[in-house]
């Protein structure tokens, strides 16, 4: 039933006019992300699972920003507008929305939604903008991580790992608009934190040194700007004389002890002839309580 007048209008009006018929003015007045879910329902559900959704309401952030009174902490956790390389300014409205749809996609300069695709979007103006597919889009907030990534000279972008492709899907789930649009390349808005694979960290035992190398993740492991994710290294050592020792090391982003890409890190072990070392590596994300095992390996010193 509702389709009929619509089809009629399609026939009568030129495309240009149609756009003004369906335009929903409030979308350009910086609404909360919930409003975008009226059409972009799936993307919204993904984003709600992301840390960007929690950026403002995170209990840890509330505590560490001294209940939102440390003003210099706030802008990246509730940004007004995201531009490549630029540290954002603080948003005035809906701060609890954290790093929101509008912050990442709406630009004051064009008063349009910018994104990676060429789309026809009657409810709001859109503009194709290739900066969305580049790592520097994330650089204004993930400043340290971006610098680390840049140094590795690896070409894969932040998005290719942290916004993995979901194949072709609909951008919108809203009648009747969904009828007019074909499926398009979609990327995950869960912004997964990911987890290093065992082979991403090489572990060697050389004499009284344990050598760890990040060979798989093209930024420090762990990496951070203001959070403090950690790696825990626990080595159970067995010496020739039967002695046993446990060595524990904490590698963290903030202490600058993280594993740099392809740069071996030496951990000094107690003196004596080590015959065997059982090494476990765990990680703890900045916002999680639990430690998760990344790798477990037993190394032997070859007898001379």
């Amino acid at each position, binding site marked *: 039933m509702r389709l009929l007048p619509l089809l009629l209008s399609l026939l009568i009006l030129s495309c240009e006019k149609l756009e003004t018929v369906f335009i929903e003015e409030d979308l350009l007045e910086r609404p909360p992300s919930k409003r975008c879910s009226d059409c972009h329902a799936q993307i919204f559900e993904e984003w709600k699972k992301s840390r960007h959704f929690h950026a403002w309401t995170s209990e840890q952030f509330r505590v560490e920003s001294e209940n939102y*009174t440390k003003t210099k902490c706030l802008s990246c956790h509730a940004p007004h507008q995201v531009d490549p390389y630029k540290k954002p300014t603080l948003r005035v409205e809906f701060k609890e929305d954290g790093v929101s749809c509008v912050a990442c996609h709406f630009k004051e300069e064009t008063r349009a939604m910018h994104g990676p695709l060429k789309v026809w979007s009657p409810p709001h103006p859109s503009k194709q903008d290739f900066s969305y597919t580049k790592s520097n889009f994330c650089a204004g907030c993930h400043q340290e991580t971006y610098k680390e990534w840049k140094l590795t000279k690896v070409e894969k972008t932040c998005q290719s790992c942290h916004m993995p492709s979901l194949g072709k899907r609909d951008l919108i789930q809203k009648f009747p608009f969904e009828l007019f649009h074909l499926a398009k390349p979609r990327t995950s808005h869960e912004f997964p934190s990911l987890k290093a694979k065992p082979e991403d960290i090489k572990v060697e035992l050389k004499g009284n040194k344990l050598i760890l190398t990040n060979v798989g993740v093209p930024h420090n492991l762990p990496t951070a700007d203001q959070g403090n994710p950690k790696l825990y290294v626990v080595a159970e050592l067995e010496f020739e004389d039967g002695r046993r020792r446990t060595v524990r090391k904490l590698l963290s982003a*903030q*202490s600058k002890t993280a594993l740099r890409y392809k740069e071996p890190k030496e951990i000094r072990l107690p003196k004596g002839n080590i015959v065997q070392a059982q090494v476990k590596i765990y990680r703890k994300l900045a916002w999680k309580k639990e430690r998760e095992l990344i790798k477990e390996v037993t190394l032997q010193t070859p007898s001379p």
Partner: protein
Amino acid sequence: MGFKKVLLLLTAVAGLSFSADKIVLKKPPASLDKYYPPASNKFEFLSNMHAMSTARTGITVNINEGNWEKALYWAKELKKIYVETSKMVPEWKDYFKPQLADNLIKAVESKNVDKVIEASRKFLQTCAKCHQDNELAVKLTYRFPSFEKIKIEDPVEFMEYETGKYMKAMTDSMKAMKIYLMQGEGDKAQEAGLNFVERARQLRTMCAKCHTNKLSEEVIVGKDYEEALAKLEELLSAEKPNKDDIFKTLGSITVSCTKCHNVHIMPAMVREAFGK
């Protein structure tokens, strides 16, 4: 005519300084608590200060432009906020002299620049007096972030400690290293020393909880500090550790400890002394 003089008026309050050769800090009255976190995030007392400061500028700017009407508006505004502020902290009631605010209003009404300058001077002295007695103590108490709430994870025991306790654990491992060295027990010295090094490295994790500019970190726990720690690690792992070299390296590490204490510990001590 009055242009120069009014400029003078502008600088009158900028001259608020500690004239005395000693600074005495008084514990701020308890009733101030409610205008600062955690009780309030609105900083009501401080906003009134800013509002008075704005009103004061409003008077000067408008007199400079010969706009006495607007100047009078700001003079009345200033009195209003002044009186309101005088009721916020009963313990400080006597610092306020509303009579002097009235005199300022009258002076503006008279449109006589000399009178305005004289009335301002007298009035602003009431601001200066209170600032001299209290501003520093209040800033240190309410506006310097507290270290007690900051937790650092101990890299040796994988447990979280608050700042003071962490400092103690770190210093204990340093002392143990020294003692073992003096007793000629190299292996034990190495073990304690490596623990100290890890703890000293981990110190840096606390900086980001308050600073967003990585340069602040570099100044104190930057490259020199990292290199000194790496050197200590190497010296301790030598077959026969060289005591003198170790102590020398330790000296260059503790330079950073002292720098950091100089910048942060005084305010931390003041807070503690006031029981905040």
